[in-house]
């Protein structure tokens, strides 16, 4: 038992690993700060494309979304980082992560936004257009605010997934939190840094998970 605690919950090792893991945490947060807003914006455009009157644009965006929802994000990331150099395009680890996540997140957020926009009745659009508001004004002021509200739990759930997926960046040697914790593990010969990193993920994500549950309960009454 003591040995188990020694291996997984060694406080001294955790304290020693803390500065490394903290730097990793900052990198994880930096990745999130880039890929979440970009993914939301990309998803919004993907949703508008999927709902466009223009058939070519509609098919192109539906194809884009299907494709990037079907490709495992790890495959995509390794392709962008290690595959594209064969075409002469060599990206920094951070840029590769940003691009791979933009493609992946846009597809997932896009599906959520599309469902949200679809959940707003046509009567809303008709009422807005009947007062002389243009199509994009109607989307911006009438449809989207309601759409986002209707799919807020799904948006937050997907964002939780994105935060978790940032640990994939470790495979392209981007020193985010998992990478940092694993480094510390290999130096200290102890699993405690990994436990510490897992604990930090838990502390960050658990409130969001609770929030989603509360939203879902409220929607279900």
């Amino acid at each position, binding site marked *: 038992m003591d040995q188990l605690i020694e291996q997984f919950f060694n406080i001294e090792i955790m304290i020693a690993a803390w500065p490394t893991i903290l730097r990793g945490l900052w990198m994880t947060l930096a990745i999130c700060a880039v890929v979440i807003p970009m993914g939301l914006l990309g998803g919004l455009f993907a949703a508008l494309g999927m709902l466009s009157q223009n058939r070519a644009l509609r098919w192109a965006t539906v194809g884009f979304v299907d494709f990037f929802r079907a490709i495992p994000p790890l495959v995509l990331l390794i392709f962008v980082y290690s595959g594209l150099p064969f075409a002469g395009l060599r990206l920094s680890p951070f840029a590769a992560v940003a691009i791979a996540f933009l493609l992946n997140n846009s597809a997932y957020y896009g599906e959520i936004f599309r469902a949200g926009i679809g959940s707003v*009745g046509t*009567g*809303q659009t*008709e*009422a*807005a*257009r*009947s*007062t*002389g*508001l*243009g199509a994009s*004004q109607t989307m911006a*002021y*009438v449809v989207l*605010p*309601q759409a986002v*509200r209707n799919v807020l739990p799904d948006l937050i759930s997907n964002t939780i997934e994105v935060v978790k997926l940032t640990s994939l960046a470790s495979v392209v040697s981007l020193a985010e939190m998992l990478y940092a914790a694993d480094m510390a593990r290999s130096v200290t010969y102890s699993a405690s840094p990994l436990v510490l990193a897992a604990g930090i993920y838990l502390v960050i994500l658990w409130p969001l998970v609770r929030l989603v549950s509360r939203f879902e309960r409220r929607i279900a009454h």
Partner: protein
Amino acid sequence: MNAPTQRPSLEVRGLHKHFGTFHALKGVDISVEHSELVFVLGPSGSGKSTMLRCCNRLEEPDAGDIFLEGDPVTGKGVDLNAIRQRIGMVFQSFNLYPHLSARRNVTLALRKVLGQSRDEADARAMAALEQVGLADKSENLPAALSGGQQQRVAIARALALEPQVMLFDEPTSALDPELVGDVLAVMRELKETGMTMLVVSHEMQFAREAADRVIIMDDGQIVEQGSPERIFENPNHARTRSFLSRVTGGA
């Protein structure tokens, strides 16, 4: 606003509309004079709502011309958003924006279409809400209003743009009976201010009391039209008689 001209306020000529193979409107001609309240009656599926929705092109007509104060509503080169702000529309299901207060339901188009300042728009919205008797509910969300109050806010929303004609698409059909009266009272007051109104509704009693003219539609066509007294007391057509006897319970 334009000085009264010889042309009607709203003019519909030779309107046709198909939904797939269904011929919903088969050449409809309607003109509404200034300050006139015209009631359109007819069985469901007769095309009356479709006709009304063509007037601001929420439905795109397949053929025919529509004019507002002599200005074309249909055809190429029409600035649809500009023409729509001159045509107010009130819907059966109110269609208030649920995320905005009553006041902001009214100010949205004032701000974004007319480009009014916040203060201007607020003042105009409060005046419109006052007109429908709901100034004290201006900060309520639609969900906190009764159906009748919601419909009155919807009327205020259309009214605030100072339209030249108002279209009412079954404005009381979604309301509990005890709430209908407030909406009809607002419509009656609107008529007294000289508003030009085209109303699709089943409110026979109201049509009889308030309408200047009643149009009977059936099967995508106008069956007949005339003063409410003549249509209700002395209809010319068998189709009118059968419709009226059905809706008035065989009287």
